[in-house]
């Protein structure tokens, strides 16, 4: 059944792809709407020689990931928004120790306990404030069940390549919906990990995984080194999909599930003679700035569409150097925008900005 299409939920496809990518340890704690990942792993891991452990809390789970990653195995945890808040201390520690691991956030509405329906209000949490301290982590935003599988594999590869936690930022819609999926071919991209704590056997110096520095200068030096790595990540990692942007006067931009709805709205706008296009960032950090810069000359205005109160707007303003108006349309709290609502916004912009 190598290339056979299967009907899967986004959460299941992500979990299965992670197993195929060589994820050997999964630690998690149930929360809607990501519970299928944990449920799937609980059934799948024992069959493939891996470990599934339901931790006593989200905090315990991320620290188990920290421990497993320190031994060099591919490890993953997943949760939904409030649970990711709890994990952010552990993510910071992993980043401070340059530990590769994958953290999945299947977003729901917030703040606080919020709701259980889909949202995209953890953009800042994922891209700007994943925990305390000076650090960033790569963030992938899939927009289909197929991409949930594809980017699960890529997340592990990039985590190992750059020795960093990597986040997959999904949402309740992508996690729960079912679509056909074909699992990507797995190429063995797991590098030798000579830094891992695997027991030195008196044959080498022992490896230490730690984020504590006794002298301020040493900590500063380590932060500077890590930021050199971020420059390489910024050059190599950005991924983006552009759709009908070449002659677009109104560029609509959204990521993840929102982008699916934006695409329908862009098609509807084109059918009415409005030159609309779409930019869909796939990496949210590093932000694919170039794709925006390339549209600035033809675009008259930008419209950011998110399931939030508008968290990606600043990044779009920066990427377009504030040369064009950047507007926002979003629904929040678990309410999902319709193509018609977005089309109405596009028409409004056409009326007001394309004179």
């Amino acid at each position, binding site marked *: 059944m190598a290339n056979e299409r299967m009907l899967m939920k986004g959460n299941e496809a992500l979990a299965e792809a992670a197993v195929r990518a060589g994820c050997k340890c999964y630690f998690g704690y149930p929360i809607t709407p990501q519970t299928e990942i944990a449920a799937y792993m609980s059934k799948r891991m024992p069959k493939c020689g891996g470990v599934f452990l339901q931790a006593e809390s989200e905090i315990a789970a991320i620290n188990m990931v920290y421990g497993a990653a320190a031994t060099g195995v591919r490890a993953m945890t997943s949760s939904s928004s409030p649970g990711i808040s709890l994990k952010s201390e552990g993510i910071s520690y992993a980043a401070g120790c340059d530990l590769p691991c994958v953290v999945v956030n299947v977003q729901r509405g917030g703040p606080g306990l919020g709701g259980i329906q889909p949202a995209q209000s953890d953009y800042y949490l994922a891209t700007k404030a994943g925990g305390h301290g000076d650090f960033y982590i790569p963030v992938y935003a899939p927009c289909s069940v197929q991409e949930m599988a594809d980017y699960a594999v890529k997340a592990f590869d990039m985590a190992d390549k750059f020795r960093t936690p990597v986040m997959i930022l999904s949402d309740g819609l992508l996690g729960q919906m079912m679509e056909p999926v074909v699992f990507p071919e797995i190429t063995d991209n797991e590098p030798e990990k000579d830094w891992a704590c695997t027991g030195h056997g008196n044959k080498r110096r022992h490896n230490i995984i730690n984020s504590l520095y006794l002298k301020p200068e040493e900590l500063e030096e380590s932060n500077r080194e890590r930021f050199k790595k971020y420059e390489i990540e910024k050059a190599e990692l950005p991924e983006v999909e552009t759709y009908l942007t070449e002659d677009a006067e109104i560029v609509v931009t959204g990521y993840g599930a929102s982008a699916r*709805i934006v695409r329908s709205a862009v098609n509807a706008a084109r059918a009415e003679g409005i030159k609309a296009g779409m930019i869909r960032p796939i990496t949210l950090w590093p932000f694919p700035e170039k794709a925006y810069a390339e549209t600035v000359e033809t675009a008259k205005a930008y419209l950011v569409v998110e399931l939030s109160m508008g968290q990606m707007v600043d990044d779009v303003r920066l990427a377009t150097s504030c040369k064009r108006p950047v507007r926002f349309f979003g629904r929040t709290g678990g309410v999902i925008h319709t193509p018609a609502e977005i089309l109405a916004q596009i028409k409004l912009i056409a009326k007001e900005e394309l004179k």
Partner: protein
Amino acid sequence: MKRITVIAGHYGSGKSTFAANYAIDMAARGEAVTVVDMDTVNPYYRTADLGDIFEKNGVKLAAPRYAGTNLDVPILDFDIPGLYAEGRNLVIDLGGDDAGAYPLGKFRQFIGLHKNECDILYVVNFCRFLTHNAEEAEEILREIERACGLSATGIVNNSNLGFETDSEIIGSGRLKAEKISALTGLPIFCHTLPDIPSCEGIDREGYYPLTVYIKNVWN
């Protein structure tokens, strides 16, 4: 058609879609019918979401009172004997897998007493990853039966690949359904055929036509 129809199956096998169609068809024939949303596992895509459609088609819905809200807690604030006593037919839609079948165990004695007027249907979609063949599908069937302490009486073959279902998918699902039927000795209750554009050319003879109520939010 029996007084009580229980719909069980793997997560995402199409239990709610089948339950809704079955109940609405029953109502269209003039039968009084109540759909019971007994999913205590997954608050997403649940039977109660189709409340408006049930109302329009004269089907009564019994669902946990917080279903569809952000307080979708795993409770059952109704009981099956009470609903049965109302005199209407019951279509009981369970949650997925064994986890979703446990709550039915509470009513095992009642169902046992009404065995002759009860269908317990196992819905299977062979395009789902964990029920890809007859053997895997049987494994999940047995887990469900153990969880609720009741035995299935028939197979609903609901093999589909969502909006990409075509004649090939329908054909291969049929073959696998015959295999699980032979393996378990359970009769095939029906083969379903969704009313979607990619299935338009398929001869409906011998299929249970399904209206797909769950739509993509981007269309």
